[in-house]
Every structure is written in C-alpha cells, then in structure tokens.
C-alpha cells in the first residue's frame, strides 16, 4: 500500500473527529431529552476517528517519516518544521487522544440532563478536542511545508 494512504487517512480521520466534536459541542449547547442519543453516538464517532487518526498517523510516523520526510526537512531551510512542529504535534496528540477517549464516558453520565455542570464538562471536553485537532492540522501543514521547502532547496 502506498505510504501516502496512511498520511491522507490520518488527516481525513482527524477532520472527521473535529467535525464530530463540533457536532457534540453544538448539541450540548442545546441539550434536551431528544438529542441525548445523538450526542452519545457522535461522541463515539469523535473517539473512533481520533483513534484511527492516531493509529494510521502513528504507523506512518514510525514506519516512513523518519527515513524520508524527516531527513528532507532537517536538510532543508525549515528544520524547525521537524524539531518544533513535528515534536510538539506527536506529543500533544497524546493529550488529544486521552480527551477523545474520555468524551464518550462523560456524555454517558446519568446526571447529564439534570445537572448544568455536566453540560459545562461536555462543552469543555468537546471544545478542547475540536481546538486540538485544529492545532494538529496546523502543525501538519507546517511539517508538509517544511518537506516542500527541503525538496525545493535540493
């Protein structure tokens, strides 16, 4: 399988995760009996998408990135695209993964409808997932630009 499949799947699953997190956030803003089931299903989509993004992105990172892209970036004019952007991305992803795994647990609390604090909790976690996926997208763009700069400088 071409290695590009893994990196493109990583971005696609991440984007689905972000969209699902926005969905959960908006539904939670107007939470009522009728949309609780949707919130529960979409929180699973968030967790599943972020996990798939982590697994395929991680496979690409461990198997291919170090031997090709990293070498090109470090030899090019934007070495910080690896030394800063990639290093931060690969480790902040653990924070995102833990939050996305916790979200389905938070929305399954039986007190979700009756207690306003639970709504704030779901808004906080889904909002953080949303922002962190967007940050991952931004870092991903910087890494791609770093590789492009490296190739152009050859």
């Amino acid at each position, binding site marked *: 399988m071409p290695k590009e499949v893994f990196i493109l799947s990583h971005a696609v699953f991440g984007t689905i995760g972000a969209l699902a997190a926005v969905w959960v956030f908006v539904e939670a803003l107007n939470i009522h009996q009728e949309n609780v089931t949707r919130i529960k299903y979409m929180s699973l989509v968030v967790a599943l998408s972020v996990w798939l993004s*982590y697994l395929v992105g*991680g496979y690409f*990172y*461990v198997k291919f990135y170090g031997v090709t892209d990293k070498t090109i970036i470090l030899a090019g004019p934007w070495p910080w695209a690896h*030394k*800063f952007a990639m*290093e*931060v991305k*690969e*480790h*902040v992803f*653990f*924070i995102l*993964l*833990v*939050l996305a*795994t*916790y979200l389905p*647990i*938070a929305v*399954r*609390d*039986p*007190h979700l409808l009756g*207690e*306003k*604090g*639970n709504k*704030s*909790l779901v*808004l*906080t*976690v889904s909002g*953080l997932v949303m922002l*962190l996926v967007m940050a991952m997208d931004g870092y991903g763009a910087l890494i791609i630009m770093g590789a492009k700069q490296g190739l152009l400088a050859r």
Partner: protein
Amino acid sequence: MQNTLSRFNAGFGLATAIIIILTSVLLVIKEVNKGLKGWFAGLSGHHWTTHGVLTILAFVILGLLLSQIRLEEKWDAKKLAVVILTATILGGLIVTIFFLVH
C-alpha cells in the same frame, strides 16, 4: 452533597487531567534522559510508540482505580471541567515550551 457525577465520569475525568500532566512531564524526562529514551525505543521499536502505549494503559488503570474511591461524593462536574481545562493548558504549555527552548 448530592452526587452530580457518576463514579466512572468522576474517576476517568480526574484520570484524564492527571494523565495529561504526567504524559507531558514524561516527555520532558524522556527527552532529557537519553538512557530512558533508548530503553523506551528498545521496548517497542520506537520511543513514541512506548510513550503512547504507557499513556493509554495508565489512563485506563488510573481511571478504573479512581472510579472506586467515591470521588463523585466530593467533586462536581464544574470543578472537574476546570481541572481538565487547566491540565490541558498546562500540558500543552509544557510540551510547547520544552520544544521551543530545547
């Protein structure tokens, strides 16, 4: 105080905050201590893979343990939201600042 959280929500919520800080601190320790980084790499073939497996294992184990200590009797959801938000900001700052100065 009337409970406003289920025990799993309280336990895994606090575990989320603790693990976010621990995984960020582990990154700093791992990057500073090359011996530990090499040991991590030896365990799974790559230090990042081992770091990820440890993070998830610790999250599950800590979440299950904290779910047993009746945290929901002392904590409410708003307090948990503030703790998770603070931990995420702190964890993000630890990772970002470390690589800015490293």
